[in-house]
Each structure stands twice: as C-alpha cells, then as structure tokens.
C-alpha cells in the first residue's frame, strides 16, 4: 500500500539522531511488547491473523509518525489479538479475563497457510539471471508489498539470484493470498541516478531485493 511506511527518498524528517550507549529497550514495557509479540505468535495459527507488516502499515500515517517504534508494535499486536478473537476489548482495557469465557486453545497450523517466509527448497524455474536488464513493474497494490515505491518503473541490473521464496504480499485486508507463488528473489542494482537523477552521485547504487513478480524484462 502507498502509505507512510514506504519512506525511501522522502525529505523533511530532519537529522539522524544516534544515541550514545543506547539500551536495547528504553523502558521495561518496550521489552515486554517485544517479547509478547513473539510469544503470542503460535496463537495465530489456524485463526484470522493479519500480517505483521500489513498491520503496522495500516496505522494511519499521522498516527504512525507520532508513535514510537514499540507503540506501533503494541498497536499491531493488539489488533491481531482482537481480530482473531483471542482477546476482547474489555480484557484489553481492564487487564482481566472476561468471566465465563473459555480459555483459548492452540490450533494446529492451517493446511491452507502455504509456505513460510524463508528460503524454499523448491525447483522453480528462474525467469531472470545475473546481468539481465530488468524494470521494476509499476505496481500499486492496496495490500502489503515489498516493492518500494522508489524503484517502480525504474531500470536495474540483476546481480544475484537468492533462490526461491514465497511472495509475502497480502490482499487489501492483510490476509495473504492463498496462492503465495514461490518464486525467485533477486538482488537488483539500480544506479543512484536512475532513481534520483542529478541529486545522486554518479557511480553510487542502490541494491533492492525483488521478487520475480515485481520485475519485467527491460
């Protein structure tokens, strides 16, 4: 979706502000949000469980920018838990289980879930090869995509074939399409000036990892 998370190339955010001796978590609650997000993962199996990235990206842009990183994670996690019915609004508000509601049970993995996010040991023909000239397709899906806006319509060179991965794009409600089409992912080199014109230094380059569906021959 075309919203604020897709930040590459924007101006106006000001300087980068590194912090000396930064702690891993700045507040105790940040660590709890991180840990809870990971720990509740298995409960999403077999339930309606919106995609992690889609749910973060669905936070309205004004809110997204005003929230800290782990505030966004908290919103994302609670959204998932509410959508899946694992907790209720009242429970979230009060901190106590609704009386009389049965404890949820872990469900087996759905057999329609398809392959995971990692490298797949599958024999899928590769449409492209290193040194091929390619163009990032001009796609603007309403769901989650890993094709950043700044490469769309731009020409680049395939540098490496990283192997076969399932497409992580979602439909516009954050559910992954049932057909996650395992396909090759490539490292594609874009000359900085192809993306940013004269503002970029000649000779610099941006390397972007693209699923085959995002590409077409140039």
């Amino acid at each position: 979706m075309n919203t604020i998370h897709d930040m590459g190339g924007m101006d106006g955010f000001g300087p980068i502000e590194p912090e000396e001796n930064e702690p891993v978590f700045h507040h105790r609650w940040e660590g709890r949000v991180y840990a809870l997000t990971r720990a509740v993962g298995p409960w999403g199996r077999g339930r309606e469980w919106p995609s992690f990235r889609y749910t973060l990206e669905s936070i309205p842009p004004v809110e997204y920018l005003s929230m800290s990183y782990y505030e966004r994670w908290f919103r994302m996690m609670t959204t998932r838990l509410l959508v899946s019915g694992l907790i209720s609004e009242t429970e979230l508000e009060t901190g106590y289980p609704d009386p009389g509601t049965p404890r949820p049970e872990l469900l087996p993995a759905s057999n329609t879930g398809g392959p995971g996010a990692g490298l797949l040991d599958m024999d899928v023909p590769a449409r492209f090869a290193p040194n091929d000239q390619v163009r990032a397709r001009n796609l603007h899906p309403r769901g989650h995509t890993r094709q950043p806006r700044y490469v769309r319509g731009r020409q680049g060179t395939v540098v490496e074939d990283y192997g076969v991965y399932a497409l992580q794009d979602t439909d516009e409600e954050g559910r992954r399409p049932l057909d996650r089409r395992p396909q090759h992912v490539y490292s594609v080199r874009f000359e900085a000036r192809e993306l940013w014109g004269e503002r970029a230094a000649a000779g610099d380059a941006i390397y972007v990892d693209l699923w085959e569906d995002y590409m077409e021959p140039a």
Partner: protein
Amino acid sequence: MDESEGRPVDRRGFIRDAAVGAAAFATPGKLMAEQPESSHAHETGHGHGHDHDHDHQDVPPDIALRVRALESVLVEKGMVGSAALDQIVDTYENRIGPRNGAEVVARAWVDPAYRERLLADGTAAIGELGYLGGQGEHMKVVANTPEVHNLVVCTLCSCYPWPTLGLPPVWYKSAPFRARAVIEPRAVLSEFGLDVPEDVEVRVWDSTAEIRYLVLPERPAGTEDMTEEELAGIVSRDSMIGVARVEAPSGGDR
C-alpha cells in the same frame, strides 16, 4: 458500545491491584502469583460503583500500564508465561548483540579462506560460528574495500540481522534514516562523521526481502599484531551497518 456494561473491573481497579503488588513492577513473577487473588478480591469485594467520582478518565492512558494489562490478561488466559517473556527480553538485552557480528568480522580478517566463504555464502559461513536464527536465517555479507563503501537500510520497516547484531538501535528504525539513506547516503554518512571520497562508490542495500545484510568493514592499518579476539573488540555495531569505519586503537599499549 457501552464499554462499562457487564465489566467486572475498570482500569482504575486494575491499577489499584497493580499498585498493591508494587514489587511486581520489578518481578513480574510475583505479579502473576498475586493476580488471581486480587482478581478474586475484586469480584467479591469492591465491585462496581464506588470511586466513580474519579472514573478511569483521570487514569493516564499510559502505555506502560496498557502493556501490563495486556500481559496480565494473556498470562491469566494461559496464553503466555511471564518467565518465557523474561527469557526473551534477557536474550536480547544480554545474550545476542553486535559482539556476535564482531566475531564474524574478526574471523574474516585473520582467516582469508573464511573471508572467501563468508562473501560467497554468508549464511553458511556465519552458520559455522553458530550465529543464524530469527531475522538472520539468510545472510549476505558485503565487503568494504578501498573502492566500495556499503550501507545497510530497511526503508519499508526495520529489517536487521538480529543474530549477528541484536535488535536495531532507534536511529536505524527512524524516519530520517529510512528516508534518507537511499537518496542521500553520502549526507547520511557525513552526519555519522564518515566522509566517503568521491572516487569511492557507495552501495546502499535496502533489506526489502528475507535476506539480511552485514557489512564487512575494512581492517584498519596498525592492527597487524592484534589477536582475533582483540580485533573483535574493536569492531563496532555501526561499522557492520556501514555508518562507521573501524579505527585502530590509539594509545600506548600497542
């Protein structure tokens, strides 16, 4: 929707209970031990109605409190265990961090065959040292040279190689870095105090898929006599993201 209808306890009640077990702020296990009792006290004790001259509007919508409420309810529903949460936090606060990546870099500096394997197949070579795992299953290592300087970013989110570098610093996840690294990497590097000469090519790696990137910085001159372990000690997190060089230690002990 009337949120107060049929609800056993409001947020203020939860806070009161939380305050009762004040020590629980430091030791979540204790909170969990006490929670059912407090909860019971609520059902039979104070119930509704009182204290509503200060209803929950005067309770700050504090994120720390909301997180505590969520953890508490998930624990009581049997969905998570506080000890398991403690362990996850401890892992990333104390066990997994940039020291792992520094070991990889130091090994590559002292062992040319390892360096070759690392650049050819980062996943396998990092796996030799045992540093693969969540958000670092598939690794690509890119080497800085006199001709090329590499910089890693995730413009869409915050992708970062957790097993080798730990969780990312706030600046890496921030809008300014995500926005600017791809359009003006040289200005970004300058802000970190790193001026890349014009004749050195800057390569920015945007981690858009499942591959995670680690920069292999150049070994600084003057470190020829250092051991692998000493070398690992001078490799900074920032040098493995690509926003710093590794400097030889200054001073008299060498």
